[in-house]
């Protein structure tokens, strides 16, 4: 594979994957030798720097990830502080809704219900103090999540019991749980 092609593959994967991805995993997915991947990552990083991009590729805790360029920090911080980011996205709201009504619940199960990977959104919700860890699931050892008292406060509720009941046209909880468990297992 040519370097240009390798760059293209790396860019596509790293742009949409949350969290650092290791060279080994990248090599497996792209089906190229690890040393070629390593070389391509280094040359791509150098290229971004020479092109004065607003972002950069950085190797952090065993993997590669896109970051905004440090020189752009004042601008990005201004954007983050602006309040535009204060509102939850639709994806975050939907994930929060699943956790609120199914807590305590594992990330895998929330993913199965939403039909998408919720890793990034879950991190956001934890970062924003709306969701917290709540022990581990007995058999699987998966981390369970629940909503926080800050979440209740934000929604203007006294307790989880005050959440509006789900509409009656949903299958009853037993049936639904059964259905969902077939999805997650």
């Amino acid at each position, binding site marked *: 594979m040519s370097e240009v092609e390798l760059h293209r593959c790396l860019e596509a994967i790293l*742009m*949409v*994957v*949350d*969290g650092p991805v290791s060279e080994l995993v990248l090599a497996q997915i792209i089906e190229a030798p690890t040393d070629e991947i390593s070389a391509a990552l280094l040359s791509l990083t150098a290229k971004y720097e020479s092109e004065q991009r607003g972002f950069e590729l950085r190797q952090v805790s065993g993997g590669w990830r*896109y*970051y*905004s360029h440090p020189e752009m920090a004042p601008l*990005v*911080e201004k954007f*983050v*502080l602006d*309040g535009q*980011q*204060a*509102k*939850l996205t639709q*994806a975050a*709201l*939907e994930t*929060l*809704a*699943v956790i*609120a*009504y*199914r807590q305590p619940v594992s990330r895998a199960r929330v993913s199965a*219900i*939403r*039909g998408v990977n919720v*890793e*990034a*959104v879950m*991190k*956001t919700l934890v*970062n*924003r*103090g*709306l969701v917290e860890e709540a022990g581990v699931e007995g058999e699987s050892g998966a981390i369970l999540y629940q909503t926080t008292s800050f*979440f209740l406060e*934000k*929604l*203007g*509720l006294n307790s989880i019991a*005050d*959440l*509006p*009941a*789900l*509409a009656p046209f*949903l*299958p009853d909880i037993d049936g*639904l749980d059964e*259905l*969902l468990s077939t*999805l997650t297992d």
Partner: protein
Amino acid sequence: MSQKNLSTAQVTPASITDGRVAGFSLHLSNFDGPFDLLLQLISKHKMDITEVALGAVTDEFIAYIKQLENAESGWDLDKTTEFLVVAATLLDLKAAKLLPSGQVDDEADLALLEARDLLFARLLQYRAFKEIASIFTERIDREDKSFARLVALEPHLAQLLPEVLIGVGAQRFAAIANRVLTPKTSPVFSIDHLHQPTVSVAEQASKIVEQLRRTGRMTFRGLTADAENTVVVIARFLALLELYKEGVIRFEQMISLGELQITWVGSAQGEVRVSDEFDVPVQTIDETDNV
């Protein structure tokens, strides 16, 4: 109403022949409702919708309805009516075409023109949306190949975030939960028709025979006064048609849409035969969406 014709019907002997031969040898792809069938028939003949060879298409349309009636799955009342409306309009138009052409001077002709224009206008509109649907498919296919960047904020930036806004109230939040938690994989079946027990025409006929033998003469209103629902009313009406065919009753209606009088003219005793052609079990072919 524009008097300009939306269709220029041209029946050529060749297209009739083609239609008849092809109609039963070709398999149409699944269609969804009368407009869909009509469009498929028209496109099969490679005709412009605005220049439809009405005769050929009408014949085939009717042929398919017949075919479907005889098919194992059968038809439900709703579906059949939808198709009959379109078929009746087509037949009207075809009949008009067979008459010597003249000016439009008669009210019936005017009505016919309107019916044709309406039918073709609806068909044109439906075709437009069908074409849009195929654009939607292309767009969705394209979109399914793009993955949005959806990553958590870099940790040092996350600390800067102002206090979060959920942005919705508790009720709206519950509505979102409802939508997300509703299983997406289960098909939605309409079960409305299950609540209605099947009504037997033969059974209704024997009730009517009993009543008419006792009273001799009744109005249709009287005969259906105790009907629990519309289906029973329809069944009794069909039963009356059957009884009329057997020659045991007589209908009288003094004015159009007036009271319908039924008089018993059959024997005072003995069994009256009523065919069971209406009592064939019918499966609904509700439009269920397998998702």
